[in-house]
């Protein structure tokens, strides 16, 4: 994966944000990159989108430094009619320099630029208040990586160097950084903590190559995970989205073999599995932006939430196959969970039927292997 310092062609600066330390740090890291100060962000963003054939593609090479005007913290939206896990997301960045064909952000974000919210002091205040309210409750799973990759911009933002020390002081939170990148340089200089989890999204090599534009090969992601584990961190993996393609069984089995050979299972906090799903409106964007991707031509149905999903028997086959290979390779103690699936699929794939979201949260925050559903 390319260094973001090399791929960013222009920095747009919200005139109201020039004095934040993070703004100054990024400008220093990217010194020499052309800059433009924006007085009227609303008009600027509208015009940026209007004038381009592929604003999303162009936006991946342009950095927008601005303020988070809303809340940094949001409950993970999950999806109606399927089981969630009460995850809390921290929206520090919007968008991602990678260009995955299936990425939901292509639909969700009206702002196409790589956006970094630089008002970090507001983040700490919001986190303090949120975690303060949870004192005495169970551990909360919280992480970045919902609306952007947690580490893709880390070489220039160095957010990991602030977030990890913060959460080390807050054991009531189980903090996850989630990435496809291999930008672990900063992590290797930080002391680990039991409540910090560095997670990688993994996929079959053919999917990584054809549908995860700009992302490093899966073997490099696993190697990055190994080095982070060596540094003392716990890790996690997300096989999400699982994608049907010719040779998918061998593809996923091969990745799981690599994973099992290189990562000790007792250092894995959890592994999630989720089959490809997307809102209908994303289909047209995918077809337009990635006309060569074959991903859209599998058999999809409209799920209970209205999203396109693989036809249930196909979904079950993929989830069951992957879960079994993971059990064989890593043992039965590593907590596996399903993202946005029904109780039926949980029961049929993992032979567990959570009573609800709280149950799943408890399962994932307990020490590995010690928890069963209530």
């Amino acid at each position: 994966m390319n260094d973001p310092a090399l791929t960013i062609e222009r920095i747009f600066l919200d005139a109201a944000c020039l004095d934040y330390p993070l703004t100054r740090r990024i400008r220093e890291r990217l010194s020499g990159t052309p800059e433009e100060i924006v007085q009227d962000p609303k008009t600027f963003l509208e015009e940026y989108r209007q004038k381009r054939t592929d604003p999303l593609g162009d936006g991946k090479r342009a950095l927008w430094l601005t303020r988070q005007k809303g809340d940094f913290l949001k409950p993970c939206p999950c999806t109606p009619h399927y089981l969630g896990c009460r995850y809390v997301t921290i929206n520090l960045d919007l968008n991602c320099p990678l260009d995955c064909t299936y990425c939901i952000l292509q639909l969700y974000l009206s702002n196409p630029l790589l956006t970094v919210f630089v008002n970090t002091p507001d983040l700490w205040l919001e986190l303090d208040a949120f975690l303060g309210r949870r004192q005495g409750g169970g551990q909360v799973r919280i992480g970045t990586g919902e609306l952007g990759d947690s580490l893709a911009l880390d070489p220039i933002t160095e957010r990991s160097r602030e977030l990890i020390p913060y959460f080390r002081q807050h054991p009531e939170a189980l903090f996850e950084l989630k990435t496809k990148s291999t930008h672990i340089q900063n992590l290797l200089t930080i002391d680990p903590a039991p409540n910090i989890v560095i997670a990688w999204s993994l996929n079959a090599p053919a999917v990584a190559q054809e549908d995860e534009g700009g992302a490093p090969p899966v073997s490099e992601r696993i190697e990055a995970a190994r080095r982070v584990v060596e540094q003392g961190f716990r890790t996690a993996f997300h096989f999400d989205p699982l994608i049907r393609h010719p040779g998918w069984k061998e593809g996923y089995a091969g990745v799981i073999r690599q994973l099992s050979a290189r990562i000790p299972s007792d250092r894995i906090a959890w592994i999630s599995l989720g089959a490809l799903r997307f809102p209908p409106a994303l289909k047209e964007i995918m077809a337009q932006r990635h006309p060569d991707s074959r991903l859209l031509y599998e058999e999809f149905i409209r799920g209970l939430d209205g999203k396109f999903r693989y036809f249930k028997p196909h979904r079950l086959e993929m989830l069951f196959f992957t879960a079994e290979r993971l059990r064989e390779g890593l043992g039965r103690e590593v907590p596996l969970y399903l993202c946005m699936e029904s109780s039926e699929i949980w029961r049929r794939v993992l032979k567990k039927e959570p009573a609800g979201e709280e149950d799943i949260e408890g399962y994932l925050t307990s020490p590995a292997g010690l928890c069963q559903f209530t």
Partner: protein
Amino acid sequence: MKFTQIDPGEIDLADDRFRVSFSDSFDELVGSIRDLGLLNPPVLAKREGRLILVSGWKRVRACRALLLSPIPVFVEEEKDDLELFRIAVYENTSSRTLSIVEKAGILSRQQGFGAPQDELIRRTLPLLGIPPTMEYLQLFLSVAGMDPEEKKIVHEKDPTAAVLQALLAFSPAERARLRPWLWTLGQNKQKELLNTLREVAARESISPEQVLAHPRIRELVAEEQLLPRQQAERLLDHLRERRNPSLTAWSRVFDGALQKLGIEKGIVIAPSPFFEGEDLSLHFSFRSREEFLERLARLKNLGDRAEFCDLFKDPEDE
């Protein structure tokens, strides 16, 4: 701009560079001009010594048909083509709803007259009621590039942008092949037909033309007693089956199991939509307590039959 009176025969109608209207019909104007006279003078321009029309095509043709002369006109002598065309566009957009083909023509001509892309996106697209993005500009410029016969159909049918987008994914020859069926359907099904055809072609790694050459489609087209709309519906059913073979197979197995049970009319047993949920649903109606109890007794008998369990079988386990 000069106001004057001229004989409509002096106007060179062959030069239609500013024409926005796609339709030739002016019959509705003849009656109104006969009764009330020409209330809104056309706008003309002078080019190489000729008088050409900027706006008022239908009005001038109606006046000619009524042999009216002279007629009041405005003549603009100083503005360039782009400025004059803007007058034509404003006059048309303020007085009537334009079709997709007319909007496409406006954008294409404005571009031809040298309007910068930024102006087309930021000024013309919103004026035409189109979202101001490059994507929409390109879509409408593609419509302007269609052949006259196809443009005529698009003008009449005035499809949605989503249908147009789906249509333009096909080559002109493929679009011509689809023409007898496509436009007989409603807009949702037009879009479904186009997208499903494209997806079947991609799934099977063949061209859309090869998809349409399937023997079942040839048979269907050969059935002369079917109306084009019925042919289109059957084509769509056929494509849906090819697009979703597993779902089709499951539906057939379920329908077969229902058929074996011979469920009487008035009782409906259905799987969850697309077999996504585990539950089956039952629907029946009744008019009295007696009928209700009778239906329940019949349902009880149905449930007691061994074949009833076939409704819950996973077809892939067989």
